[in-house]
């Protein structure tokens, strides 16, 4: 084998602490090395040409580059060698920068360490084998989980590029939390007015298959090749026959037994309902927990009035299987409820704020419904207890956010803005009203955000008090808010008519279970985890699964939309090629020595190890052995280290390669 060694100075990065020409001279003397050279920037075009030229002139079979970390330029050098006719997997990188020059001061010892690192790589490359990348086909169809604004945006982007999308939403309608909002900051445009056209577009798009009232039940497979099982929950209404006329809803005798989820419990809804008038699809659902027919077998009023015969009490859940190449998670958030909790609940709650105890203490989403023209008060701000306009209202920020002892350590990010918006909307509607905001800091980073908060304070006269509230209690029909003004340095007491709590944003119900189902990481709060916080913010560590919106962390509408488009772009990159190439660095089982203990299967984090039955030529059972699904294997090597009979090897990092590296050091 003819090996070439190329030492990079990386400008002064390596060259300052490592005597590169000396390393090259020492390398040239190593057994197997036929050529060695150093150069100022090996990754530059002339540097790469140097390698290519040497490969041709010296007929090299293998190349060792002493340079920066393989994370930086392994690809560059592999490509250069490949174009000169050397298999890319016959290239080894010795990390002379991060592992040597950057962390040492003394030139002599750094140089001798660099020579050792080169020797290790040279000994390893002798055992390298030419490898061919693994190719897997791509199913050019995406699954989007969650039909809020993020999911809608991602689905529209992918569908717009000409690919099929399945949009799964667990509620009866798409729209998510955005459909509940009154106006949006910082422009105060009506939320539904900008959202509903998008919802309709989703419904009408030929490339989008919309599955509402459905949940993802199972996911198998890997990037480009996922098999998904979706549970389509029964609406007890035949979607093909229903025209959405609403007669059944009008005539349903159960008007007041169920509280409306869409109105956050501030209004009632019938047993058969659509969540809100602009729902997409406009097909009702029967809530079997309150429906008289499902409780006593009587009534059937909806059946009688439905001219299309669409009501189907016998309809059952259906399982739908789909094959997709990419998955976008857009499951969103919910608000932390500070209601009284069962004793074993992990979060302590804020009993002192009286949420759930006093009717006029509401949360942010409830206030949105009160301020919304489509809400239970038709947009008039009326307090829930006596339906009178509150003359004095107090907003409290950071309830559960930035409070490790009672809630969560993180900032929910949107509350400063929506509280300013709430206070502003209140002042616009109740002209003689007084609005107070208790805050810790105002975090209004964003285009026109700070200006928006200033407008609330300066133009609308909202009174901001920096400090926390210790207690809220009711006295003579007033809510007494006891707090602290930390700027004035005194205690404050406000007798208000209504209180709005900006409670923390937390991940949607069952987000962590979904993460486990999909095999993607989530953080301690249950938010989905990106693979790199800066450079890969919408990708998960599982190939082909991307993140959009508040399922990742608290974020507002513009950020969610931007993230959704980014996730869609990542899916489209995947769909841009017919086959995927991946590194062949995967585990391989020696079937002759494998004893079938399957310890490897237990430790594999990627479910890549399967069971395989070996039969002799007569078809008789010999034994069961482990088999690595190379599409799923991520090449981590855990199985390799676990195998008691040394029957699993990691290609590219085989035992003899590792031993060669160790011996290279031991011989000195």
């Amino acid at each position: 084998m003819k090996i070439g060694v190329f030492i990079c100075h990386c400008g002064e990065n390596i060259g300052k602490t490592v005597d590169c020409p000396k390393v090259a001279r020492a390398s040239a003397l190593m057994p197997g090395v036929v050529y060695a050279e150093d150069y100022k920037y090996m990754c530059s075009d002339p540097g790469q040409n140097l390698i290519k030229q040497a490969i041709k002139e010296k007929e090299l079979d293998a190349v060792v580059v002493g340079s920066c970390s393989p994370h930086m330029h392994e690809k560059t050098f592999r490509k250069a060698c490949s174009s000169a006719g050397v298999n890319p997997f016959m290239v080894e990188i010795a990390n002379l920068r991060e592992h040597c020059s950057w962390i040492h001061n003394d030139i002599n010892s750094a140089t001798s360490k660099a020579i050792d690192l080169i020797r290790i790589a040279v000994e390893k490359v002798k055992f390298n084998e030419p490898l061919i990348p693994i190719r897997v086909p791509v199913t050019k169809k995406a699954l989007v989980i969650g039909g809020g604004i993020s999911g809608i945006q991602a689905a529209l982007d992918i569908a717009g590029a000409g690919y099929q999308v399945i949009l799964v939403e667990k509620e009866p309608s798409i729209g998510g939390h955005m459909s509940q909002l009154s106006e949006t900051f910082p422009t105060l445009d009506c939320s539904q007015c900008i959202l509903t056209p998008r919802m309709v577009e989703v419904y009408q798009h030929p490339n989008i298959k919309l599955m509402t009232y459905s949940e993802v039940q199972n996911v198998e497979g890997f990037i480009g090749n996922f098999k998904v099982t979706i549970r389509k929950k029964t609406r007890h209404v035949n979607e093909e026959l229903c025209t959405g006329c609403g007669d059944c809803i009008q005539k349903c005798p159960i008007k007041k037994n169920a509280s409306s989820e869409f109105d956050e419990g501030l209004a009632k809804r019938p047993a058969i309902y659509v969540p809100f008038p602009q729902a997409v699809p406009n097909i009702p659902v029967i809530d079997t927990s309150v429906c008289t027919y499902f409780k006593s077998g009587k009534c059937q009023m909806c059946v009688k009035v439905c001219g299309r015969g669409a009501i189907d009490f016998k309809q059952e859940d259906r399982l739908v299987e789909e094959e997709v190449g990419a998955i976008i998670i857009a499951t969103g958030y919910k608000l932390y409820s500070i209601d009284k909790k069962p004793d074993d609940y992990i979060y302590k709650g804020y009993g002192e704020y009286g949420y759930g105890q006093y009717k006029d203490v509401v949360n942010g989403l409830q206030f949105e419904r009160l301020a919304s023209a489509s809400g239970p008060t038709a947009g008039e701000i009326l307090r829930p207890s006596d339906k009178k306009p509150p003359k004095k209202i107090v907003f409290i920020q950071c309830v559960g956010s930035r409070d490790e002892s009672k809630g969560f350590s993180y900032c929910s990010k949107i509350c400063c803005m929506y509280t300013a918006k709430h206070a502003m909307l209140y002042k616009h509607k109740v002209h003689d009203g007084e609005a107070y905001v208790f805050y810790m800091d105002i975090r209004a980073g964003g285009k026109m955000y700070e200006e928006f908060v200033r407008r609330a304070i300066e133009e609308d006269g909202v009174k901001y008090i920096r400090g926390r509230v210790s207690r809220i209690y009711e006295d003579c029909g007033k809510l007494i808010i006891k707090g602290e003004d930390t700027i004035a340095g005194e205690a404050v007491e406000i007798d208000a008519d209504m209180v709005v709590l900006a409670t923390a944003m937390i991940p949607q119900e069952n987000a962590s279970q979904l993460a486990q189902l999909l095999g993607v990481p989530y953080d301690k709060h249950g938010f989905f985890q990106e693979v790199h916080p800066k450079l890969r913010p919408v990708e998960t560590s599982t190939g082909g699964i991307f993140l959009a919106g508040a399922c990742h962390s608290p974020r507002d509408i513009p950020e969610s939309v931007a993230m959704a488009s980014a996730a869609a772009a990542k899916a489209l990159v995947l769909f841009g090629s017919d086959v995927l190439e991946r590194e062949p660095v995967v585990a391989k089982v020696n079937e002759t020595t494998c004893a079938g203990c399957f310890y490897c299967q237990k430790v594999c984090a990627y479910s890549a190890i399967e069971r395989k039955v070996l039969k002799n030529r007569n078809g008789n059972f010999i034994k069961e052995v482990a088999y690595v699904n190379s599409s799923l294997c991520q090449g981590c090597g855990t199985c390799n280290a676990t195998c008691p009979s040394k029957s699993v090897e990691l290609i590219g990092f085989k035992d003899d390669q590792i031993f060669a590296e160790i011996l290279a050091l031991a011989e000195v």
Partner: protein
Amino acid sequence: MNYGYYPGCSLTGTAKEFDSSVRVVLSKFNVRFDEINDWSCCGASSAHATNHLLSVALPAKNLFLAKQQGFEKVFAPCAACFNKLISSKHEIDTNKNIRSKIEDLLEEKYSSSPEILNIVQLFHNIGLNEITAQKHVDLSGLKAACYYGCLLVRPNDINGTDDNEEPTTMEKVVSAAGAKTVKWNFKTECCGASHSIAHTDIVEKLSKKIIDDAEKNGADLIIVACPMCHSNLDMRQLNIKKHNPGIKLIPVLYLTQLVGLALGIEEKKLGLNLHFIDPMPLLKSKLKIEAAV
């Protein structure tokens, strides 16, 4: 197993009616208990202001004694004693550094401490059903405001209450004993605590707010489980009345006294005659005490 009883200083002095009612009520329930032999000061409010280690070591000495005397559970009716004992236990259990200092000071190895209960928790241990079962006198004419104060429900996380801002454990005991409870706002507000001597005006102001709110919400009496709360609400009430002639006097009873009434125990044995605000007129009008067993 017998409970260990840690009376603390208050129950031997200003709150001796708390002590006598604890003893007589527990004997009615056949709860066996022994006073911890040779118990000493818990440190209460003065030790932690002097030296942190001292404030851990003083209760620790009693925890060590209780352990040596074989008690697995210790109850401390005084809320301050309870608070100091659980805080010290928590610190020794979780802070190795403090533990080794305490071991050096007390010249003894630490293995574990007994479980520490306050009087509300002790009643829950006895069982709410048991309280209801032993009830002899109908207290349903009484409307009680349960006042927890601060020390009974703090520190957060380690005191074993259901909610340190909106606790309900005392209400459950009072209901089990047959009295009504009122919903009110000030059950964990500050009574002024040990400012009682140096800043009586502050205590009177704060205690007045508590009394006002209890009355406004329809309470006939206030139930406490802390000698400090009791003295501030009961002893200072006459002075509050002097400055605020409008207020109505309201009796303040210990939880054990209320349970004792339900069990039909004679009022003198419960020390009901030792309060500044005499509860007897109220009790006589609302209950048929004479018919007691």
